């Protein structure tokens, strides 16, 4: 059997904001780059980002990158690598202007500048009061950035392989040689030889049953790295966004609170006054999610149900129509709620992975606590952990992260590939995958992929949610471990070659299970509470023991943990109050 072979300077895996910006930089530098995505490029989940992208432009009031950096470090509960956060906040204005020059339709001030609005945890002068820092295009900022980057990639002649699912990284020794990819449409494996590979596959919200994330968010890139013996960093830090549409988990942007929205309990009380007296509803997400959770635990949900109310009824109709039109529409369509007249029922929803594939500030993937670089392998965006978000990400810093570091990865690869063609294609890289797919198709009566996924989501929701304990995380780890074993016997009944989504989901569920296992185990190990990781049995932050990053390896089913130091440059850890 023959297979299609391709030869590139660089392969970008994933076509969201990070992947497209990296590809665009490579296109601008004249390198031959291919973007592989399991979706059509414009379907990526960057398009679901709503509220904005922060940058200290100072268009509405004085602002400084240093204040932005401080907020990012404090928001991340001091687990942030401060050298990376400084780069991100310093480069933020330049990235926003770059995007604006490419065509992003930002909302404007009356004098034609990019408008800015407040967002959770973003303050002036080191925590004094909320600051207008978020640049936005209504409440579809991510979609506008995604489409704009896609458009400019088309203009630059970037080559796209739509609906190609990357199944394996290929190595020659320790050095990257390319990737193996499954062409979904034809049902065939392809080899892509390249001296540089960038992982830009986004997050893994599908670990959980209720999530704001797309079906596609299955952490494929992180699982690729893990299988290649690379550790994942800080996986216990998973963000639950406080305002998902009740029952569905669809995101209701923090922009709703940035524009003046208020969270209320059954008594109509603005309960954030008790949890974050200064920033109130614009406190960081980990705090607001815990507050909502506690309100629900004590029976103060609306009508005693498992949601609180997001009150927008006091806002001008024009604000809803012009600045947050999409989310008001979501409430109408999916819940039959008119936000101009009644509160939107919301509850925490699994949203964002702070952890991921460890990288340097140029996106080079590293393999240990000394940050030893894996030659030729890069990562950027949610899949990566650079780490600018530490233990908890601030709103709008996700778009900023993927674009700053996507661009840096593109520039770093353009430099790297001047060094030559890289190793020859290792023949065995593709054979193993072909045999596995054939075995799946020949297996009858194995466990169904959909059931493994449902059981995993249930275990993760029960054990590794907003609050965790030693018992809950151990139970999740054991349950997922059992599912991982069962996955070894999985069968894919769909014999048709073309567009087998059953096969695609078999790949995806394998990836999710590996990440769930590492997440539960990492959450079990960290016996403190920091940022989004809240241990009921260890309620305090413990800097003496835990001011370090978790590295978790998974080799032949065995977990191994190491601690990696946090880079602290400007801001010493302090108690985190808002």
């Amino acid at each position, binding site marked *: 059997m023959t297979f299609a072979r391709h030869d590139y300077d660089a392969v970008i895996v994933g076509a969201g904001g990070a992947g497209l910006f990296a590809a665009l930089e490579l296109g601008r530098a004249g390198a031959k780059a291919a973007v592989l995505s399991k*979706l059509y490029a*414009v379907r990526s989940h960057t398009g679901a980002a709503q509220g904005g992208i922060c940058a200290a432009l100072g268009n509405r009031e004085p602002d400084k990158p240093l204040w932005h950096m401080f907020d990012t470090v404090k928001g991340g509960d001091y687990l942030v690598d401060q050298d990376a956060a400084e780069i991100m906040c310093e480069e933020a204005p330049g990235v926003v202007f770059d995007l604006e020059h490419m065509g992003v339709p930002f909302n*404007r001030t009356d004098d034609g500048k990019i408008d800015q609005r407040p967002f959770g945890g973003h303050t002036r002068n080191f925590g004094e009061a909320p600051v207008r820092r978020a640049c936005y295009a209504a409440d579809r900022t991510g979609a506008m950035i995604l489409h704009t980057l896609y458009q400019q990639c088309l203009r630059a002649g970037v080559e796209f392989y739509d609906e190609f699912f990357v199944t394996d990284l290929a190595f020659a020794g320790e050095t990257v040689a390319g990737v193996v990819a499954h062409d979904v449409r034809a049902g065939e494996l392809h080899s892509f030889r390249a001296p540089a590979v960038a992982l830009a596959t986004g997050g893994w919200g599908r670990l959980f049953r209720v999530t704001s994330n797309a079906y596609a968010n299955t952490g494929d890139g992180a699982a690729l790295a893990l299988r290649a013996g690379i550790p994942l960093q800080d996986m216990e830090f998973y963000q639950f966004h406080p305002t998902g549409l009740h029952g569905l988990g669809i995101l209701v942007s923090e922009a709703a609170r940035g524009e003046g929205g208020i969270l209320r309990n059954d008594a109509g009380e603005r309960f954030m006054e008790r949890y974050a007296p200064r920033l109130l509803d614009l406190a960081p997400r980990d705090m607001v999610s815990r507050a909502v959770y506690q309100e629900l635990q004590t029976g103060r949900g609306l009508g005693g149900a498992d949601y609180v109310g997001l009150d927008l009824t006091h806002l001008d109709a024009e604000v809803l129509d012009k600045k947050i039109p999409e989310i008001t529409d979501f409430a109408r369509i999916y819940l039959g709620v008119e936000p101009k007249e009644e509160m939107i029922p919301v509850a925490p929803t699994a949203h964002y992975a702070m952890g991921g594939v460890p990288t340097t500030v140029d996106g080079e993937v590293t393999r240990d606590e000394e940050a030893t670089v894996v030659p030729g392998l890069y990562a950027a965006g949610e899949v990566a952990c650079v780490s600018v978000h530490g233990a908890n990400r601030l709103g709008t810093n996700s778009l900023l992260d993927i674009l700053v570091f996507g661009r840096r990865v593109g520039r770093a690869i353009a430099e790297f590939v001047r060094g030559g063609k890289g190793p020859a294609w290792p023949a065995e890289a593709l054979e193993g995958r072909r045999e596995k797919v054939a075995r799946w198709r020949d297996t009858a009566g194995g466990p169904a992929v959909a059931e493994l996924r449902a059981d995993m989501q249930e275990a993760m929701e029960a054990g590794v949610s907003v609050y965790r304990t030693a018992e809950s995380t151990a139970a999740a780890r054991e349950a997922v471990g059992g599912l991982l074993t069962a996955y070894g016997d999985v069968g894919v009944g769909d014999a048709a070659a073309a*567009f087998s*989504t059953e096969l695609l989901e078999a790949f995806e569920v394998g990836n999710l299970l590996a990440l769930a296992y590492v997440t539960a185990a990492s959450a079990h190990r960290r016996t403190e509470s920091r940022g989004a990781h809240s241990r009921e049995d260890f309620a305090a932050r413990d800097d003496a023991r835990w001011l370090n990053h978790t590295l978790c390896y998974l080799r032949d089913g065995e977990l191994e943990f190491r601690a990696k130091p946090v880079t602290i440059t400007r801001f010493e850890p302090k108690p985190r109050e808002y």
Partner: protein
Amino acid sequence: MAPAVEFRVTRYDPAADEQPRLVSYEVEVAAADRVLDGLEYIKRRLDPSVAFRRSCAHGVCGSDALVINGTVRLACKTLLQDLEPPLLVEPLATFPVIRDLVVDLTSFFEATRRVRPWLEAGEPIPEREFLQTPAELTAFAEGTKCILCASCVTACPVVKRGTPYIGPAAVVQGHRFVNDSRDVGAEARLRILAAADGAGACENFFECTKVCPRGILVTKRINEIKAMLQAGGYVKGDAADG
């Protein structure tokens, strides 16, 4: 037990089937379920081989436009309670079927690319942002809502009839850029849209506007392009009336 709704879904495997066929499924539904939830139920519980595209599941990624009870809609934005059962779920009719509900959108993306759908910013590029007033933003903002789901193309009677036409989505893409105060590429785009299969091929059936899941006034924008083509002398006086 939850109430059941019958879904009749187009199944087609080009390697095995001569013709597409309809297969019936009993789907248990909850009150606020969407059509996509029903398809996921089928895939999870009844037949894992049924093929359809989906991703974000809330109407922003553009993956799951389907013909549902005869009308083009996004499966994730259509509630079951708003439809008469049984449900008929078919692929987008104007494109070749790859399998089941999955169609080949190559021609769709090629058509939109023809209008050079990218900003060509005028020199000099400022150090900070281009200044653009809220009114200048409004002039093109609606077109930026397009998610390239291809609903409008499938609903268009001109396309269905086989008349050469670049399609409503491509004209909307053109509209978005030629009306952007930062753009200097209008002339090339308008020349493309002035061709025989360009905006002038639209006959004002308004079907595109009716089905657009993003609420874009597609036909109105097409007519604005027709007017620009006339005013700019790209087409002769009567051509735009179609």
